[in-house]
């Protein structure tokens, strides 16, 4: 038992992302309401963003802005002192794109609602078959 707890604590960050990601996936698979599906998709995206940002972390590293002052370089820059900037760059764009895709998803949901007057999947299906 203590062995399992130790493994969870050692890599608790991955456990958190995987739990979040599975919550999102579960919502996307099983929920019948389209808005709930969209919310699930956003939770999934958030889990991936957190995962990437945590990959960039370095113990003892500071934010990836090189220490500078007017008057030039004082010392050499070493990679160990700064956290990995690459995941931050990737996720910076991913966050804005996530908002944009959320907008498109909501627009589609509005169109579906205007046409079928419901956002429940099974009711939409029955209306498609019925008419």
């Amino acid at each position, binding site marked *: 038992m203590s062995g399992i707890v130790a*493994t969870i604590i*050692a*890599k*608790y*960050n*991955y*456990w958190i992302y*995987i*739990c979040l*990601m*599975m919550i999102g*996936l*579960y919502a996307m*698979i*099983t929920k019948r309401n389209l808005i709930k599906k969209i919310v699930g998709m956003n939770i999934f995206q958030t889990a991936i963003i957190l995962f990437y940002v*945590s*990959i*960039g*972390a*370095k*113990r*003892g*590293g500071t*934010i*990836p*802005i*090189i*220490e*500078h002052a007017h008057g030039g*370089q004082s010392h050499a*820059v*070493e*990679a*160990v002192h*700064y956290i*990995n*900037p*690459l*995941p*931050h*760059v990737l996720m*910076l*764009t991913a*966050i*804005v*794109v996530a*908002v*944009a*895709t959320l*907008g*498109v998803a*909501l*627009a*589609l949901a*509005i*169109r579906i609602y*205007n046409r079928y007057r419901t956002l429940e999947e099974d009711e939409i299906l029955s209306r498609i078959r019925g008419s």
Partner: protein
Amino acid sequence: MKKLGLLLVILSGALLLYATVDFPLWGDPSSPASLHVSPRYIEKTMEETSVPNIVTAVLADYRGFDTMFETTVIFGAGVVCFLLLRVLGGEEGDHYYRHLPTGVTIHVKGAKGKSLSGEFERIDMLWTPYDLVIKTACRIMIPFIQIYALYVIAHGHHSPGGGFQGGVILGASVILLAISQNLRTALRRIGEKTVGILCAIGVFIYAGTGALCLALGRNFLDYAALASVLGTDPVTARSHGILIVETGVGIAVMATMIWIYNNVSSAGRYDEGL
């Protein structure tokens, strides 16, 4: 169906958790992700681009193509929202007006083509009370939010910030206006056409800078080519090129956020928002 979904989710979650056994520990400086590409960025950014913020330098210079197409994706999302939702045509149905000196709310049925003006102010049907506190508080806050957004864009070289963040804050300030007053007030400040054109201008600034570099004899988005135009050395020209591109990104992101909000909140009718 629900049980099958739960089973699938638990199975894939367990598989992923099993894989984490081989993953590096949190904050490990010698993890594979921190060993291959990023040390080059961290050590060379200052001498190659003279931009202290490595994230900005990688975003707009080293990975310039990626960011350009991300901006295009955002532009595309704005256009798709517009095409899916926008309903053209006259406003029909009932309108609510408030008589400003007395505060009386009147209900006009079938106000087709007619509109009251002068002492009357059109109000949303879902929310009729006169909310002075919210309007005044937002009127005070919005200019400061916008100045802060411009600071975030312009100071992205030296502090956390850049086009994406500043653009979102700028867009949020206009959306705050639309929420605190109503959608029509925000549309009078920044109209539908303006938003669409700004959205395209942002992407055009980005791609145009790249094409200018191409015309000046270097690779696409190689800002060192701008040195002769800007009158600086190639390293400083990279820094300036990044600023130009970030401005384009900021404009595109701001316009897209407003565009998506306008379309989604009014379901494409542009009469009453949230």
